[in-house]
Every structure is written in structure tokens, then in C-alpha cells.
């Protein structure tokens, strides 16, 4: 158990600044172990940026950095993103 950890739900505000769809109910599949689940249930850590990790294997699915009028996203750890339309 890590006291600092939050739920992916807490990234909803940051994601909502860029994505015009509700992202916490979107589904991500982990590129590491294949586990799939809602973004809201991912494990969120705040370092110099936000990291969303797979609840099964801790793989970093998404990194989000913000500053100087720009945002950066690294979806490299994620296999697939599913959004209900």
C-alpha cells in the first residue's frame, strides 16, 4: 500500500483540459500485462508530472506533464484506449 497513491479519477481534470470526452470512464489496456480497466481505477502518482500505472503490474501507462503553456502525453505504456461514443 502506498499512501501517496490516488485513483486515476484524480487525473480527470488535467485530461479534461485536452480531451473533449470524459476520460475517467474510458478503458485502457496495459501494454505490459494486458489488463484492461477504466482510467478512473488506475493508480495515480504525482511526481514532476502525473503517472497513471496499471493496478495489476505497475507499468506506467500514461505520463502527463504540464508547464510553460504546454502539455505532454506519453501513452507508450498503454496498448489501447477505448472510448464509448
Amino acid at each position, binding site marked *: 500500500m502506498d499512501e501517496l497513491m490516488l485513483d486515476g479519477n484524480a487525473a480527470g481534470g488535467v485530461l479534461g483540459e485536452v480531451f473533449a470526452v470524459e476520460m475517467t470512464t474510458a478503458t485502457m489496456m496495459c501494454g505490459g500485462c494486458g489488463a484492461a480497466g477504466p482510467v478512473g481505477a488506475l493508480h495515480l*502518482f504525482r511526481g*514532476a*508530472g502525473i503517472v497513471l*500505472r496499471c493496478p495489476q503490474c505497475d507499468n*506506467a501507462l500514461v*505520463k502527463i*506533464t504540464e508547464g*510553460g503553456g504546454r*502539455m*505532454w502525453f506519453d501513452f507508450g505504456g498503454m496498448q489501447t484506449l477505448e472510448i464509448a461514443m
Partner: protein
Amino acid sequence: MPPIISRGFGGRRRGDAPPGRVPPGQYVTRDYPVLSAGPTPHTPLDRWDFSITGEVAEPRRWTWEEFRELPAEDVTVDIHCVTKWTKLDTMWRGVSVDTLLAGIGTTAGYVIQFSDGGYTTNLPLADVRDGKAWVVFDYDGGPLPPQHGGPARMLVPHLYFWKSAKWVRGLRLRTVDEPGFWEVNGYHNYGDPWREQRYWGD
């Protein structure tokens, strides 16, 4: 649209900013905020080691006991986090990277710090030599707590603090640069707080 100023909000935990000590855009804190890109690792000391690998004539490795037998020194420095807090006069104890690299044969120009949990950060090799960097194991007079990077972390105070890896397990020397965990995601490849090099292109 500029942000709305909230009347009377100052941020109570801030400290005074002595002239010349605070890089541009930073605010002095009396706290020590805990920021982490992942869960706190808990490597037992009997499994911990520190390695120098990569472009070296001979890799080096120390167990915790061997590491703690190396000459160590007390270091007091200011630290600057890219998230805008600066903490003055932080006290550490650790082994100078010069000690770890003493006499090493290498043509490497770059070093990548690697940590438990997968974090990496990259610097020019010159930026960890000549008294600029340490592997520290004590903070503020006691053992470095896990949430602050214990049992050992890097201390490279002349750069933003994301360039000082927590839970460090070694240095990989390379002739080619290798942007690390945050450097690939918007953070500046070098990170000099005095030139406010926070993000790509700064």
C-alpha cells in the same frame, strides 16, 4: 486569460528568499513535499547493490556493507524542484560520485541514473564529477526515509531535483545520450534552474 488572484492567499508554508539563493520562478518552502512517479520501493538492504555499468573498462558493484565502508561526507545544499519549490540548506551525508568513479576507464560522455521501480534520468558525465554529485543515504541527521528515496538516492544539486534519482541503484555510462523518464515527456534534457530550463526548448 490570466489566473484570478485569490485575495489574501499566500501559501503559509513559504519561507524567506535570501537574495541570490533562489533561481527564477522558484518559491522557498519550509516543507519537504513528497513527489513520486511510482510506488515506494522497499528493497531489503541485503539485496541492495549499487553498480557502475556500461561504457567502462570494468563494471563496479558495491553491496550495502561495502558501500557504507566508502569514505562519506556531509553536504549542505539548496535543492530546487521543477514544480517550483526550493528548499534551502538541506543536510545530507553520502559518498561522492568522484569516489565511485575514481580511476575508472571510460570514454563515456553521458551517465544515466537508474533506480528501483524503473525511473531513469540522464546527465552529461561531467555533471556528476568534480564535487558536483553524491549518492546520499542520510538526510537531516538520520537515515534517508523511503518516501524521500531511501536507502540511497542521488544528489545533484546544481540541476533541478528530478535529475537526482530516488532509490538509485546505479549509473550507466554511455557514449550516447539517453533521455530519461521525464526527459522524454517534456522536461528539459539538461535542467539548469538558474537558466530556468524546465521544459523542452527552454
